[in-house]
Structure formats: C-alpha cells, structure tokens
C-alpha cells in the first residue's frame, strides 16, 4: 500500500474527499446527501490518509482526538434541539420545526445544525476506529 504513487496522490484525493463531504452534508436537505453520508466520506478520507502517511500524521492534522469530534457532534445536535426551548416549544422536533422556520429567514436552520452534528459524530467515531485499527496494524 505504501507506494510512492499512493503517497503522492493521497493528499489530493483526501482534500477533494473532505471538500466533497462538506458539500454533500450541506446540500443534504434538498438534494441527495446529508450529515451521515458526508461523515462517512470524510471518515473514508481519513482512513486513506492514515494508510498513506501514517496514523501520526493524521492525528497531527486533526489537532483534536477524533472521538472529541464525535462528542462535539452529539453536543451540537442536542443543543440545536434545545434552541427550540427559547421559543417555548418542546424539545420534540415536529413542533420545534414550526417555530424555527416560521420566524427565521436565517439560512442556517436548526436541522442543518443538527445534520452537522450527525456529520461530526459519524466522522469522529469511524475515524477513531479506523485510526486505532491502523495504529495497531502497524505495530
């Protein structure tokens, strides 16, 4: 796996994959895509990154522990639901939805925030598993 060609091309592929994953995540509300699939693409990118440049390089590039991303994602998703409390609606989404869209013209809606949370959870969890496995395999 660790060939010169792969190592050279990998960063390019990875950059494209990460960009694409963000794109897929954001378009998800209207076109095929969404946080889940976006997170999967980004995690695959990280797995490839790890194979090409080693786990240490990925961890350095990520700055935070991948599981931290996952925790951040759950937090964002939960907080996006809590925002509805300020309008007096319950946490349950169907009612929170009315409020959030009835008054807002902001393009970043709470479901979008929620979807970004999903993105981070899937990305963080799978990346941490993949990196852990690659780490072990290298020993």
């Amino acid at each position, binding site marked *: 796996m660790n060939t010169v060609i792969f190592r050279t091309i990998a960063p390019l592929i990875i950059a494209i994959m990460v960009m694409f994953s963000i794109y897929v995540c954001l378009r998800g509300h209207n*076109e095929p895509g969404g*946080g889940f699939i976006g997170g999967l693409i980004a995690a695959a990118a990280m797995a490839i990154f790890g194979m090409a440049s080693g786990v240490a390089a990925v961890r350095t590039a990520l700055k935070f522990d991948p*599981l931290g991303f996952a925790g951040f994602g759950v937090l964002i998703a939960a907080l996006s639901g809590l925002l509805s409390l300020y309008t007096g609606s319950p946490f349950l989404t169907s009612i929170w939805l009315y409020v959030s869209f009835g008054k807002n013209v902001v393009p970043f809606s709470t479901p979008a925030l929620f979807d970004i949370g999903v993105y981070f959870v899937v990305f963080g969890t799978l990346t941490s598993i993949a990196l852990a496995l690659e780490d072990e395999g290298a020993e």
Partner: protein
Amino acid sequence: MGTVYRVGPTLDASIALVAIAPFLAALLAPLTHRFVGSYCGWVLAIVPASIFMFLVKLIGPVIDKGFIAASIQWVPSYHLALSFYLDGLSLTFALTISGIGTLIVLYAGPYLAGHGHQGRFYSFLLAFMGAMLGLVLADNMLALFGFWELTAVTSFLLIGFDHTRQAARRAAIQALVVTNIGGLSLLLAVLVIQQLGGNWEISKLGALQGSALYPLVLALVLLAAFTKSAQVPFHFWLPNAMEAPTPVSAFLHSATMVQAGVYLLARLTPALGGTPEWTAILTIFGGVTLLWGGFAALKQTDMKQMLAQTTIASLGLLVLLIGIGSETAIAAMVVYFVAHALYKAGFFMLVGVIDHATGTRDITALGGLMGKLPLTFAAAVLAGLGMIGLPLTLGYLAKEEMYLALEQSDWRSIVLLLTVILGNGLLGAIALALVIKPFLGQFRSTPKPPHEGSFGLVAGPLLLGVLGLAGALATGWFGSTVLVPAASAVLGHATTSHLTLVPDFGGLVPFLSVLTWALGAVLFMQSGVIRAALRRSERSSWNFDAVFDALMFGLIRSAAAITRLFHHGRLELYLLIVFIGFAVAISAPLLLNHGYDGLLATADWVQLFGIRTVRPFEWAVLALAIAGLLILLFSFNRLVAVLALGIQGTATALIFLLFGAPDLAFTQFMVEILSVVVLALVITRLKLDERDRRPYEDLARDGIVALLCGVAVTLLLAVVLTGTLDTKLSDFFTATSVPIAHGRNIVNVILVDYRGLDTLGEISVVMGAGIAILGLLRRRRIVP
C-alpha cells in the same frame, strides 16, 4: 373526623418545608462544618428545633379539626403529589422525630468532634431525618413509598458511615437488602391498594377488609412493616446496624427507621385492621419478637448490643398492641411509643457517653462510675425508671394500659398477657442491669480514666429523662394532646383518655405491675446464670445471619453462573443466536397469524417478483451480486471473502440507485467501502489464518441459519408485495416536506426533522459503540 382545615397556601408551603428543610440543611451541613467545626451541631440543630416548634403550634388545630391536609403538585402526570396529612398519629411521630432529632444533632457534635467527615455525617443524618418526617407526613402513597426508600438509603449511608471497616459495610448492605425487600413489597402493596381504591391518598382510603385481594395486600404490607421494624425472622439486621456511630443508633432505634414499620401498621389499621388474620399474625409475630429480643438482650454483655436487642423486643410489643387493636391497646401503643422513644434515645446516648469516657461498653468490665459520672448516672436512672415502668413515668402509664387491654378472661388474652408480662420483666431486668452494673458497686479500672461527658453529650439524655417524667406527671395534658388525637387517628373514631397515675387497686392491673417488677428484679439477680445457660444453648452451627450470608452468596454465585452461560465470550455463538433470533422474529409472527396464506394463494412467483420486466442492465447488476455470492461461498481465503462481500454490497447499492433511492445508494456505497477497509484492518490486526477452516458440521449449521435468514427475508418481502402498500406516511412526508420542513430531500428531512429525536439517540449510540470498540482495542494493547 373533622373537615379539611386549610390555612391558605402559606400552610402548604410550610408543611412541605417540614420534610424539605432537613434536606436543604443536609446540603449545607458540610459547609457549616467547615466554618464552625464541631460546633456545627449547635447551628444545624436550629433546623429540627424549628420544625419541632412549628409542629407544636399545629397541635391546637389538629386537636380542633381532626387533621390538616396540604398538597403540592409534584409530578402531576404520574399522580405524584406531595400531599401531606397531619393528624394525631403523624403529629406524634413527627414531634418525636424532630424533637429527638434536635437532641441527636446536638449530641453528635461533641460525640464526633475531630472526626474528619463530621460534615458528611450531618448531611446523612439530616437527610435521614427529612426522609422520616416525609414518611410520617405523606398522604400520597407513592410519596410515602419514596420517603420509605429514602430512609433505607440514608440509613445505609449512616450505618456504613465508618466505611473503612468491613463489618460496617456488611451491616449497611444487610440493612439495605432486608429493608428493601420490604420496600419493594410496599410498592406492590401501594399499587394494589391504588387499583382497589382508585386514589393515591391514604386519607381517602376506604376499608379494604372485605376486598377479594385483602389477603394479598395484607401480606405485602406486613412484609414491608416486619422487615422495617425488625420482627422475627427479619430482625437480624438491627443488631448488626450497631456498627453505626452511636448518635445514629440512638436515632434509628428510638424515633426513626424501625418505627416506620410500626407507623405503617398504625396508619393502615383503619383500612386493613380488625380482621382475625390481622390480629393473629400481628400478635403472634409481635409476641415472638418480644420474647426473642428480651432473651437475646439478656445474652449480651455489650451495652449497645443489649439495647439493640431490647429495641427488637419493644418493636414486637408495639406490633402486638396494634394487632390487638382495641381502644385500650392502641392507647397503650401510643403511650409506649413515646415512652420508648424517650428512654431508648436516652440510653443509647448514655452508652455513647460511657464508651467515650471509659473506652469500653462491656457491662461486665464496668462498675462504680456513679461518683465519676454523676450527671450520666442521673440520666441513666431517669431512663431506667421509664424502661422498667415505675410509677410517675410514661413507661408506667404505657404498661398499665397494656395490662388493662389484656385483662380479659379468654385464653388468647391470657397467653398474650403472660407474654407481655414476661417481656416487660426481661426489659426491666435489662434496665436494672444498665443502671446498676456500670454505676454502682466497686469501681473498676477502665481502658481510659473515666471523666464526665461534656454538656452537649449529657444534656440530651437528661432532658429526655425529665420529659419522660413530666409527660406522665401532666397526665391529663398528655392524654388530651397526644394520646387522644393519635389513638383516634389509628382507630378511625374519637376516643377518650383514661390515663391516671393513681393505681386502681380494685382491678388486677396494679398487681400485674408489681409482678412484672418482681420478675425483672429476679431476672436481673440471676442474669449471670441465665446468660450462661442461654449461651450454652445457642447453636453456633447456624443463625439468621449465616442464612442471610448464604442467600447473598448464593445470589452472587447464581448470577455468575447465568452470566457465564450467556456471556461465554464465543463470538460465533453470539452471532448464531442473533441470526436465529432474527429469522424467528420475522417469520414466526407471519406464520402464527397466517401471513403466508395470501402468498401461497397467489403462487405466481414470476409475476410477483416482476421477473419479466427486469431490464438487461438490471440483469447485469443481479449477475454481479450472484458472482459476489459465489466467490464468497467458495473462497476460503478471508480477505477474498471480505472483498466478495463488498461486491455484493456494491451490487445492492446499484439496485438502490437504479430504483430511485440515491441517498440509500450513496450511503450503501460508503458503508461497503468502509466495512471492507475496517474488516481488512481487523484481519491484519488479529493475525488470523489466511484461510478460514471450519469443521463441516459447523459449516452446515451456519449455512442452515444463513439460508433460514435469507428465506425469511425473501418471504417477508414477497408478503409485502402481495399486500397493498399503506402509503399514508409516505404521502404525508411527500406532501409536507417542502411546506413545513423546507426541504426537498425527504429522507434527510425525516432524519433531521420528523425523526430528529430518534437520530439524536442513534448518533449517541454510534458514539457509544465507537468508545466501546476503542476500549476493546486499547485493552488488547495493554493485556497482550
């Protein structure tokens, strides 16, 4: 009973505060301790003292109106209201709890001075008091159950307070287990009673004696009361609970915890009492417990243990009196409860003082302390008078009432009367021993040079002793303000007091009293002989403690056995069970409900699966899937098998794509890629054989299960196809996705909007699974 007496919302709040304030104080206790050290008892005692004063002010209204009710909504959807109901019975208990509680809080200050965790101790103690106050004031049965369990939990913390000692931990767990058996039983009883009566309030409870479920309710309530109030055969946890610091023992034995069972029985007497079963069970268990505790006390030489055993005896006596249930018996119960609380709390505190002063609690190692500890001796005499039941004490009044209640000529009353006389004689003997042995006679040297306890230590017992006299001397006042309201509440109808300090020599009662005292004196004189005889007859091979231990270890062992059975650590068997379960879950309901009948009637499979309409490129995708399947089946190389599985998944994703589900296809592609990558990594990591060799019987077994799953899924889909598809939901989503959710991708809108909460749960699970996998991987690294 009178009408509901409401004094506006302020009363609601203040009655609730009676139960809540101790908990608030418990929160502040560690902080208080940090600021004022061992003097924090004086600060914290303000709370129970104010509760006591507040309750004293309510005596008038309660006597006038019968009861005071107050209610605060708590969890309305579960009918959980913090409704309080203050009648004579609850008031008597609450006054005893808060009054004695005040003295205990004061006493614990000097007693535990210098202890590193005194603040924590106060937290537990005050929370315990709050739970007990809530218990006796609660009207809602669920709230009653909640407070009941709270007393168990807080007493667990208190008994195990000295948690570095194994004995303390064991005693705490034992108390928790035994009383929680009763707690669960109480919960069941509460639920059944609610179903019978239709409401959660004790005050609205009708008579249940005629109900068909009466025996069940009775059994559940009695189990709850007997475990809490340490009736034989559930008595063994109480002496072990002596591991708690002395202030706790004093509180637990006099006014709280064990009295909760007595309270419950008294409280439910109108609803459950008066039947032959009630009388028979309560008097038998009470009588046996009385004698058991009395003799067990005589066997001990540790003063704390002696007192603990006499508590068991006294609890038996109280239960017996409730069982008799006549007006006089209930009056005796009320008076005895108060008298017992006063002298028992006093005695326990005194034993603590002696323990502190001399360094021992063994009654045979003490003597002649009267000169060294004069105040302690005075308090012990006062407490002893009450315990023996000499004239001019509440104990005397209680005993007279008991004998009056049993002064009948039928054989049952005579048996009970003899039991009670013997029991009282035993208690009298113990009281004599506790007063005479340590204080009179020759002075004996002790581990520490004896010194009088500080004011905080001795004030409480002295005050309690004086109260025991004062209550009796103010006979009329005690009768009208304590006895009558409480007894009326238990009986369910008004009653009168006929307490008097003047013995009526026309009847038998005074002579029975004299007989009791004489019996007590004789037993005391011969206590050495009796103790030796009792100890000889004690069989060391088994006792209740050993049975409890055996049961607990059996529980742990059987739990371990069950765990080993289901959690054997063989992945292939787990997977086998999962897949068999899967096949059964989707085919069994259809089979049982004749779901396949329509399918078999159709029988045109070619038509059903639309094989004629499959287009050529779709055939190609199917061929790809089948190719993947064949490679999977015939490759014994693991890596090839994983790749073949990927081919299969890709073919599935293509099918999704062709039939207009791009989202699904998209996700399926990514999942396939990642699973192949992860599986390949796992294979390298686990250093498995390149080839997967399995015995043929294993292959056959796994193959059959796989086929079963496949057939089940195919049939399920076929059934779905033969039926009409209910498009209600998809229509709804299609129609509303854009107008109310502002999204055209219905799948995504469902995920993040309509079913947002589900998704939130799912991503939490994803993360949890990730953490678990990481944990497994790291564990492998640590333990190679």
